């Protein structure tokens, strides 16, 4: 347990020394300024415009920061031979992985809280709380997927490209399923059926990120209890799935 706490603590410390807090503050400041500018320009629904754009900007920025931090941190650790040093300790690889994931999850959670606070200036607290919890789930998924990609691919560029591709695909999968199922001809060819089946199969193993962290929750339409629990369940389930896939890969590596 002390190993987990130590490694998780050093991961958080690394984030602080990388000036992640300053970067987050700068992003919040710039987003607030842009939203205020748009608020001045808009002639109607100015608060909604300000809130929606602020939330969207903060969400994308948080995802980008978490993915970049996880990937560059793991690559730097591998290049400095810190990974080998940690794995030489008398602890299983799974403990090392859990420690790293715990550290990155703490950073992701802190970022979710920090990025949600400015929204409380414009939106009801209940909506902001739901939005923040959902952003936390989303960032945990992004952190675990980034970890999986960097453990498997070991390079910054390829890992980041894979994570970005995963995120974009997850967010657009529902739209792709709708498009795939709406062929305008009544004749359904084998190609139509194969394409629809492939798209649906891919959708099964991707998380429903498009249902998470929705701006409408900030504008007054809170999700029902069932939906909120479903999103939490999806977040937890997907983190477990990707973590076990990462562990599978980590155990097979000759380090």
């Amino acid at each position: 347990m002390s190993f987990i706490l130590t490694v998780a603590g050093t991961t958080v410390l690394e984030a602080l020394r990388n000036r992640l807090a300053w970067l987050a503050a700068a992003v919040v400041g710039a987003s607030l300024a842009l939203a205020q500018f748009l608020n001045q320009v808009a002639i109607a629904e100015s608060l909604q415009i300000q809130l929606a754009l602020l939330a969207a900007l903060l969400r994308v920025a948080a995802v980008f920061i978490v993915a970049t931090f996880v990937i560059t941190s793991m690559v730097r650790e591998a290049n400095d031979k810190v990974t080998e040093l940690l794995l030489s300790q008398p602890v299983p690889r799974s403990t090392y992985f859990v420690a790293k994931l715990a550290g990155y999850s703490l950073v992701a959670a802190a970022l979710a809280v920090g990025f949600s606070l400015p929204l409380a200036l414009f939106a009801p607290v209940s909506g902001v709380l739901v939005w923040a919890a959902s952003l936390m789930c989303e960032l945990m998924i992004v952190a675990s997927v980034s970890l999986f990609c960097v453990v498997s691919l070991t390079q910054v560029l390829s890992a980041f490209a894979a994570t970005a591709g995963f995120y974009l695909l997850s967010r657009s999968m529902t739209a792709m399923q709708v498009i795939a199922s709406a062929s305008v001809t009544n004749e359904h060819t084998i190609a139509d059926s194969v394409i629809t089946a492939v798209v649906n199969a891919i959708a099964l193993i991707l998380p429903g990120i498009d249902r998470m962290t929705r701006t409408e929750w900030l504008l007054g339409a809170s999700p029902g209890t069932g939906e909120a629990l479903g999103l939490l369940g999806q977040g937890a389930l997907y983190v477990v799935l990707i973590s076990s896939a990462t562990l599978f890969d980590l155990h097979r590596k000759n380090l």
Partner: protein
Amino acid sequence: MSERPVSHVPRSVLAVLAAALIGQASFKSWQPVELPEASDLPPPPGMSSLRLASFGDPIPLAKLLMLYLQAFDYRAGSVTPYRSLDYEVVQQWLSRVLRLDPTGQYPLLAASRLYAEVPDEAKARKMLDFVYEQFLLDPERRWPWLAHAAVIAKHRLNDLPLARRYAAAIQQHATGPSVPLWARQMQAFILEDMDELETARVMIGGFLASGSVTDPAEARFLEQRLHEIEDRLKNRVHVPRK
């Protein structure tokens, strides 16, 4: 760097991986994708927002928007797809897509062949009018869809004056070399169907006299139609009034 065999992976990890994979697939399959209803179709964003969203390359966005639009109120095998859509909103979407990609043919194909062929006559007319308006903006490229609109007006709506209006527009505005003669001659045949034989005679005669009909078979066909019209005109003159 060689990898260690799968036997090095703890069984607990394999078990959790398999369980989580099954759990994820089950979770997602319990949340089926709902096809959007007609009422779900929102008004399109403004042109400036769309141009901003296109990141300076509007054509891919236009293509995606068309695929997005056609998914609304469509059910595979449904007898009456698109019937419940708000056609004002559909026209706004089609218009935006055309402005993003003016050379694209898909929006007017959809307008004339999908949205105009609904059993609701008012909606069909609305969509045909849209095709007509858009045709006037680029006749050389968009004449095929107005020609199809003329066919729908004539055969589905049984509105010969409307069909003639569209055919006349093609004859008047689509004058480039890529427009086939049959499209430019449509008006003459619609006039014949409307029993306006004198005008049809003058029009077909004009085609033949202008020298634009270079294909001998086509010229023969037009001459034959001209003779038939003239015969009908003579018969009409000789019918005694009661």
